[in-house]
């Protein structure tokens, strides 16, 4: 999948920006605060309906404006050619358009244009709490399976309904249990599917991760990942469901006391190891960085193998942190990726030694105060 052009209106510091993109490599250089990240964040909006930088759409609107608008034209194998638009205004909220017609739900967009993002905040993936890893795996699987995304949304709904009952029901225990039962059924149905799918994808993902870590690190350590849920992870939905039911029954008193849903994929954890030691506890800064890099490159390869269309790869300011050897490894990986790539960089990175900026297949851009221009080379 490729984005051939992008139009921005009032998107952060881009008041009016129109760019034509190259089909393979797009390198965007400029000083800090020039608006490089905003360009690839806008592309991310058209793929995932949200920013990868800020948590609220409100902060994305240009300071002097009340709305923003992003439009992009995409070309791919499955859908030959289509437009995606995203508009946001304080009054009307966010809307996504595909070929000018609005989507009923923002989630319907996910998976249409697969995307992988590499950014400095990826360090959080391995160093912070389990929530980071759950949201990584959820965004990962949602892009390859719309049914999984639906299960996530349905699970969340059932869990909220159930929590509300646990928190606010005042009456006798038997009645509460009878009221909980319909929600237990939904919780188990969606939850078991989520766990089975996570198990399946992570089992396949392991090999990709091992391979990429070897390339990136030069094989000094061997990476492992362990998926932890309320039972022995299984790819079989029925097996998980039986275990789910048993656990819910076992933890019933505990749940009534805590007034909270305690069993389910919302409490899953993915533990990363290098050889035998847990990365989160014992990893050095450098190891976290390399591991996160390997995770994202593994995701890129996984998507490339599994999906009919190659994902768009967005790299936000990642070269600044890498030594010469890793820079070379990463640049080579980018050149090998047949899909479309976007790279932002503030520091002078020796891109020209590796990439031929012919202006057709690969292009270099310069951004200055929200203005973008193509850099002529040679």
């Amino acid at each position, binding site marked *: 999948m490729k984005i051939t052009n992008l139009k921005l209106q009032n998107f952060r510091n881009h008041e009016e920006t129109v760019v034509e993109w190259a089909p393979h490599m797009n390198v965007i250089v400029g000083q800090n605060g020039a608006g490089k990240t905003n360009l690839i964040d806008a592309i991310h909006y058209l793929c995932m309906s949200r920013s990868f930088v800020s948590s609220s759409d409100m902060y994305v609107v240009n300071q002097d404006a009340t709305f923003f608008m992003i439009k992009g034209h995409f070309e791919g194998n499955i859908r030959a050619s289509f437009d995606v638009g995203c508009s946001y205004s304080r009054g009307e909220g966010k809307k996504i358009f595909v070929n000018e017609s609005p989507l009923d739900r923002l989630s319907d967009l996910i998976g249409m244009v697969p995307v992988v993002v590499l950014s400095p905040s990826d360090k959080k993936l391995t160093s912070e709490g389990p929530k980071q890893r759950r949201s990584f795996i959820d965004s990962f699987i949602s892009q390859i399976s719309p049914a999984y995304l639906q299960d996530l949304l349905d699970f969340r709904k059932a869990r909220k*309904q159930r929590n509300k009952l646990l928190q606010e029901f005042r009456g006798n225990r038997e009645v509460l249990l009878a*009221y909980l039962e*319909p929600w237990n059924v939904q919780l188990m149905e969606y939850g078991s599917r989520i766990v089975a799918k996570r198990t399946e994808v992570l089992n396949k993902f392991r090999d990709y991760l091992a391979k990429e870590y070897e390339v990136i690190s030069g094989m000094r350590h061997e990476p492992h990942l362990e998926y932890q849920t309320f039972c022995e992870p299984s790819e079989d939905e029925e097996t998980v469901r039986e275990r789910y039911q048993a656990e819910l029954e076992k933890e019933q008193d505990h749940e009534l006391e805590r007034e909270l849903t305690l069993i389910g994929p919302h409490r899953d954890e993915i533990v990363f190891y290098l050889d035998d030691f847990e990365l989160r506890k014992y990893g050095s800064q450098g190891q976290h960085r390399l591991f996160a890099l390997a995770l994202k490159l593994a995701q890129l390869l996984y998507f490339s193998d599994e999906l009919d269309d190659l994902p768009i790869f967005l790299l936000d300011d990642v070269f600044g942190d890498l030594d010469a050897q890793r820079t070379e490894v990463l640049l080579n990986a980018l050149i090998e990726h047949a899909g479309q790539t976007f790279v932002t960089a503030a520091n002078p990175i020796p891109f020209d030694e590796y990439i031929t900026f012919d202006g057709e297949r690969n292009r270099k851009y310069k951004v200055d105060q929200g203005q973008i221009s193509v850099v002529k080379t040679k």
Partner: protein
Amino acid sequence: MEGTSEILEQAIEQLAKLPGTGRKSARRIALFLLKQNDESVIKLAEALISLKKSITRCSTCGVISDGDPCSICQNTKRQTGQICVVEESQDVFLIEKTNEFRGRYHVLGGVISPLDNIGPDDVRIKQLMQRINEDDEQIDEVILALNPDSEGEATSYYINKLLKPFDDVEVTRIAYGIPMGTELEFIDEATLGRAFASRNTF
């Protein structure tokens, strides 16, 4: 604020409470009504008042109706053995249009949703159980025709569970499937998946 009418603002405020009507549309409607002749505005007002004052609910099935019991419950030609459970009165009108169902209805007036503070006692589930327990109306089948969302599912599950002890009452639900006049390629995966799961023998 000068230059506006307090009376107009009040009308707009009331109109803006209507579903699908924002303040902008409410203002348009209010100004439109102002331009109409007295007679047609009074007719509208009277229709609204009698809608609220004269319309009633059938004490048996709960559908909104001009009289109690409603015409469906009164109709002796309809099968008494089947009850179709729906969420709102409008669902009754929709199903009636199909001419496929000749039994009677039971309108719950909502579905279970703890997040909205609606429990089983806040919808007409007890009344449904009473109807089934009554001797003069022998029920053989309860058809659940609720929305396939999580609240509808939870409500269906709850009712089905309550009806389990009644051996002579069969509980069925309307099928999930592919809408008429559409093609497979335009169906979302969730619907198609459901349609597969509830396929029937050809």
